[in-house]
């Protein structure tokens, strides 16, 4: 099936896997890549923890952890050891099964996202032809784990946090998915590797508005500042993981960073031309871009205070959602009406359009600061 010479959504889903020539080719590929992905996730999570602490401390005119190992690089290792030898406390009146399962439910989908991320040309666990759809579907399962933790902990702070996370993530899922469709329209494929291959210029230029929407929505998805209501330590102490300690807490902590890495890699793939880049090997380009995106996230975290729950919801429904629709409309028109137009013209038009739209919508965006009448 094709529209305008582009392949769109074949009706059968099939995974193309590289190098299945040798005996047990499929399985050996699978096993090797599962190990690589797991190692990547764990190492990157530890690296990111160290990186975030160091970078954020620079923003805060501090030095950050620098005692253990060179530049404090072993600090996350020490943290892990500390956290693993802690007593695993299960409070008395918790819902035991849900309490136990929650960390696993949270972390598994977060890691599964990496199955379709291309680290280099074609180098992914599976190159699903519906890769991005898979990511959208899988990544929001993590919140089920967080809600389970909030509900199962028998703690009011955790419960408030769980309620907040449901409302927030469900709302932000919509602009998030809509902004991705813009990319898919330009690329003409759902496969992550295909999207990267299609980016002769990074899609951030073709889709500036989509990028902003995706960036903000994904910050909300993974609960980073300014949308970190889930664990707003000033209000609900630690949120859903308040009753967790030891290994289970470590899993939640890992989930958080895995999700942060996931959105960094997804942004890299969708908007920053993934592994593409001159001179350096593709994997290195990929990593550099991921770290750049993550630095931006840290920068936001170092600067901004937190929004209130009604403002967060209002922002999703009144600001991001209409903008996402308009962005989709504009992109659709551009793809259908002028398929042969030079990309640079579209870049210029889109940048101007997004600036105008953002200003226009900000003018209309209001929040209520008043009291709720009790």
């Amino acid at each position, binding site marked *: 099936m094709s529209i305008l010479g582009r392949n769109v959504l074949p009706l059968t889903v099939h995974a193309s896997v590289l190098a299945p020539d040798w005996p047990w080719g499929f399985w050996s590929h699978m096993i090797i890549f599962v190990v690589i992905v797991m190692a990547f996730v764990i190492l990157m999570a530890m690296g990111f923890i160290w990186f975030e602490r160091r970078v954020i*401390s*620079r*923003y*805060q*005119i*501090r*030095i950050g952890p620098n005692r253990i190992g060179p530049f404090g690089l072993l600090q996350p290792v020490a943290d892990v050891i500390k956290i693993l030898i802690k007593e695993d406390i299960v409070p008395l009146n918790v819902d035991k099964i849900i309490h136990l399962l929650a960390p696993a439910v949270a972390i598994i989908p977060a890691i599964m996202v990496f199955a379709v991320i291309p680290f280099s040309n074609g180098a992914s666990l599976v190159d699903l032809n519906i890769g991005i759809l898979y990511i959208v579907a899988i990544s929001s399962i993590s919140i089920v784990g967080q809600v389970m933790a909030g509900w199962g902990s028998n703690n009011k702070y955790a419960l408030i946090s769980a309620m907040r996370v449901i409302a927030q993530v469900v709302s932000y899922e919509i602009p998030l998915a809509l902004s991705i469709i813009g990319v898919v329209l330009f690329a003409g494929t759902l496969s992550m590797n295909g999207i990267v291959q299609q980016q002769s210029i990074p899609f951030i230029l073709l889709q500036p508005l989509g990028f902003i929407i995706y960036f903000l929505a994904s910050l909300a998805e993974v609960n980073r500042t300014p949308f970190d209501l889930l664990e707003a330590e000033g209000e609900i102490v630690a949120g859903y993981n308040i009753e967790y300690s030891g290994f289970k807490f470590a899993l939640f902590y890992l989930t958080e960073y895995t999700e942060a890495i996931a959105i960094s890699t997804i942004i890299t793939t969708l908007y920053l031309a993934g592994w593409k880049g001159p001179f350096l090997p593709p994997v290195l380009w990929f990593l550099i871009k991921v770290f750049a995106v993550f630095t931006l996230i840290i*920068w*936001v975290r*170092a*600067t*901004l205070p937190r929004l209130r729950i009604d403002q967060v919801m209002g922002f999703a429904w009144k600001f991001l959602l209409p903008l996402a629709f308009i962005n989709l409309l504009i992109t659709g028109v551009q793809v259908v009406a002028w398929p042969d137009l030079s990309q640079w013209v579209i870049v210029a038009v889109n940048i101007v359009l997004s600036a105008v739209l*953002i*200003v226009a919508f*900000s*003018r209309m*965006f*209001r*929040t*209520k*600061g008043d009291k709720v009448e009790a």
Partner: protein
Amino acid sequence: MKLKSYGEGIAKGMLVTMKNAIRDPITTQYPEKRLNISRRSRGNQLVWNKTACISCSMCARACPVNCITMVTSRDENKKLQMDKMDVDTGVCISCGLCVEACPQKCLFMSRDYEKAVYSRKKLKLTKEDILMTDSSKPSGYYSPENETKLPKQTLLIDGKKWDK
């Protein structure tokens, strides 16, 4: 509520944090690098000059938390002498009133600040512990003679000068 600006404020704020990120961190890497503490520092110990003391126990009376225990007696020349002068540094709040009360100016605050010990009993200092020796560090608190001898305090406002 209606806003007047759209993201400019946030952008400005992000620039400020970036500006601070390239400044020198203000942290001092403590055990390796040290700041010069104030010349008048009131550290957690007393320094007692035995020869000048007339055992008048003004210091013990001035203390608001009663952490100086003093026993005096008269020797054969009817001169007061100090039998016991215990200072419980666990109770002392380093207020310096005892130093100010001393008529002979023979009691000083110490400039020492690394005074952690392993047991609470060791916090109780006897008169031998607080005796002025060459190694004790009397501070310039209420004692201008000491003050002029001590090194100048490092001030944060003067920038980084503590690599000594």
